[in-house]
């Protein structure tokens, strides 16, 4: 497909140049091709994969050229904010759904509900409800989910079987007993790898609790609730019982190989690792590993609703063209293609009905988990609060704080971080819808 598209484009370029030149000569006003050049920011590996999806789009929309700029994941957040401050935002972008509230607070994003209402492609009821909900802030829709990401368990089927377990755990109690059976710290074998500088694992456990993580409309932290302490307790115990090594992902180095060697029987991580394990583990080991939904405190557990959405920036001059690209990328067939390229899980149920996803046993657990995900608190400060939560949790793992002390400390830090938000909310126009957001 790419081979066919390339010469066509350059010939079209020539064509347009010829028109432009003759137009200039005739003194008439020909439409400039630059008027339809879309700037699209893609983050991380998605940026490479999308290059292969674009020729078909440009073929179907000959008047639109897409200029993809790839941002590395580590610099993307900063780049987006800098672009906003400098007034140089792109037309559309991929945006992690935990970053969405931040850019909404900046009034940087275009509301999309009206476009969705008139769209024949994007149908809200086809999307996993919680993932869709992460794009709705204060009752307004700002993004269309592109791919979803929820953390769940990768596990070694063979090791579990050898230890006498036929199935992955469904409850925390089962999980604990399996972790105990599979850990042998003296031999450097641990039940699970939980990098102590990643907050997603603890956050997933915390989201399984009935209490929200922030209270009073996101004005204060709610980490001293019984539910969060239970989650933190379970998490910290896993280290205290030496069922997980207290190391960061910097030291974990290559977790895939170690998983293959049996250093870890469980790995709590996201869907992109399906692809990693498929490429990094030898063919003989491919039947030894599987995925399972997260165990919950008493039954099937809830996971965090992560992933990326596609957003249009308010400052864009080509919003209609940008929306056409979003519609194209939202088609189930394109999402299936995207999954095959990268392993990113589609957010629509109909995308799961066909292609490689339907029959993939490793993806099935994600499908199950995606019906049971919960969004993170939609406040711009969430990313920072989650980071502080993890820093304090790491102190608790190191034995410097008890669970109660740690919970109180996280609340204290969250309240400090949210101080400005409280001031802004109290000085803004009274907005009844905002008062009731969790």
């Amino acid at each position, binding site marked *: 497909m790419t081979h066919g598209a390339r010469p066509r484009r350059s010939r079209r370029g020539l064509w347009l140049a010829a028109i432009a030149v003759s137009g200039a000569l005739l003194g008439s006003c020909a439409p400039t091709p630059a008027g339809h050049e879309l700037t699209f920011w893609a983050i991380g590996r998605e940026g490479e994969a999308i290059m292969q999806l674009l020729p078909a789009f440009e073929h179907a929309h000959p008047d639109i050229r897409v200029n993809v700029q790839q941002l590395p994941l580590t610099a993307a957040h900063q780049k987006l904010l800098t672009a906003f401050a400098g007034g140089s935002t792109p037309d559309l972008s991929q945006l992690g759904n935990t970053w969405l509230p931040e850019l909404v607070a900046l*009034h940087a994003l275009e509301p999309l509900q009206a476009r969705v209402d008139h769209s024949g492609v994007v149908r809200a009821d086809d999307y996993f409800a919680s993932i869709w909900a992460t794009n709705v802030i204060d009752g307004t829709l700002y993004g269309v989910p592109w791919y979803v990401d929820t953390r769940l368990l990768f596990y070694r089927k063979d090791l579990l079987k050898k230890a006498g377990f036929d199935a992955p755990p469904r409850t925390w109690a089962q999980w604990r007993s399996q972790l105990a059976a599979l850990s042998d710290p003296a031999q450097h074998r641990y039940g699970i790898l939980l990098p102590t500088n990643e907050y997603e694992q603890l956050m997933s456990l915390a989201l399984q609790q009935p209490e929200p993580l922030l209270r009073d409309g996101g004005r204060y932290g709610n980490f001293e609730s019984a539910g969060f302490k239970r989650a933190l307790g379970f998490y910290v115990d896993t280290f205290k019982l030496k069922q997980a090594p207290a190391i960061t992902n910097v030291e974990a180095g290559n977790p895939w190989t170690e998983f293959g060697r049996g250093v870890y029987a469980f790995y709590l991580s996201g869907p992109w690792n399906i692809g990693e394990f498929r490429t990094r583990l030898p063919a003989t080991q491919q039947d030894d590993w599987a995925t399972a939904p997260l165990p919950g405190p008493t039954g099937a557990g809830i996971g965090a609703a992560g992933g990326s959405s596609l957003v249009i920036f308010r400052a864009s001059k080509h919003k209609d063209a940008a929306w056409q690209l979003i519609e194209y990328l939202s088609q189930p067939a394109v999402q299936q293609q995207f999954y095959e390229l990268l392993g990113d899980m589609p957010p629509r149920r109909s995308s799961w009905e066909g292609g490689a996803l339907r029959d993939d046993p490793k993806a099935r657990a994600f499908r199950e988990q995606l019906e049971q995900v919960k969004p993170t608190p939609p406040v711009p400060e969430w990313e920072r609060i989650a980071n502080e939560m993890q820093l304090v949790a790491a102190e608790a793992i190191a034995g410097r704080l008890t669970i109660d002390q740690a919970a109180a400390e996280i609340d204290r830090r969250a309240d400090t971080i949210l101080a400005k938000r409280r001031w802004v909310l109290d000085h803004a126009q009274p907005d009844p819808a905002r008062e009731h957001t969790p």
Partner: protein
Amino acid sequence: MNSPRSAWLFLAPALVVLGVFFLLPVLAALILSLTDYDLYALADIRNLRFVGFGNYWELLHRPLFWSALGHTVYFVAVGVPLSMGASLGAALLLNSPLARCKPLFRTALFAPVVTTVVAVAVIWRYLFNTKYGMANYVLDLLGIHPIDWLGDPRWAMPTIILFAVWKNFGYNMIIFLAGLQAIPPNLYEAARIDGASSWRQFRHITLPMLKPTLLMVAILTVSGYFQLFAEPYVMTEGGPLQSTVSVLYLMYDEGFKWWNLGSASAVAFLLFLLMFAVTVLMVKLSRRGEHPDGGPA
């Protein structure tokens, strides 16, 4: 045209450049440090509040600021003497008449300086890997229990110091080498005739003659080391347990990660004040015991 006016005229272009690109940004940052400029203010300027010295006050009450300051001072206090010792030692060896293949060694020892800090930090991260790293392999050969170099809060900073010293000593070594080569050889000749040992030659000729170079290198190294950032950023991301968060790292986090530009500017000014004070102190100390004409006591 009188002469002061023409002097100003000639100076004007330089002053304008200095004012626009140096004074103005510094002034803007100073004003920024007195406000609570953050995400909300970026969205709507009405959310900007003038907080006076509030940012400074809050910083001085934040345990993380003090621990970051502690880590930075630790890095400077241990790193600078080590770095200067290593570079002076290497320069003396290279300057010695016994040394062979001088250009080769000079290049080899200078090589770490010109490499990218990120690239070599990644390599050192592998060397110091607890399980597979070469450092622990060597310790194992010597029968020493493996050390969790970058994962243990007590060891992470010493490891970073070791890395920084290795990375930077070549630069100072070149300066020292130039300083050593500027010492007139007849001084050593005279000392040898008088029967001075090589230690006494070093103590009474090399060190005093090198004193201006030493002071300059010390000031450059101290101010460089106070700005510790890239090493922990790449090797430990400030961890484990924030034991390698430096003042500049804190500023980066505040400003560019969390977009609290007000408090980040306050961190920058506190660091500036600290570095200014230390430099003044160093210059004062080096002047003590000197003759008024500037020669050694």
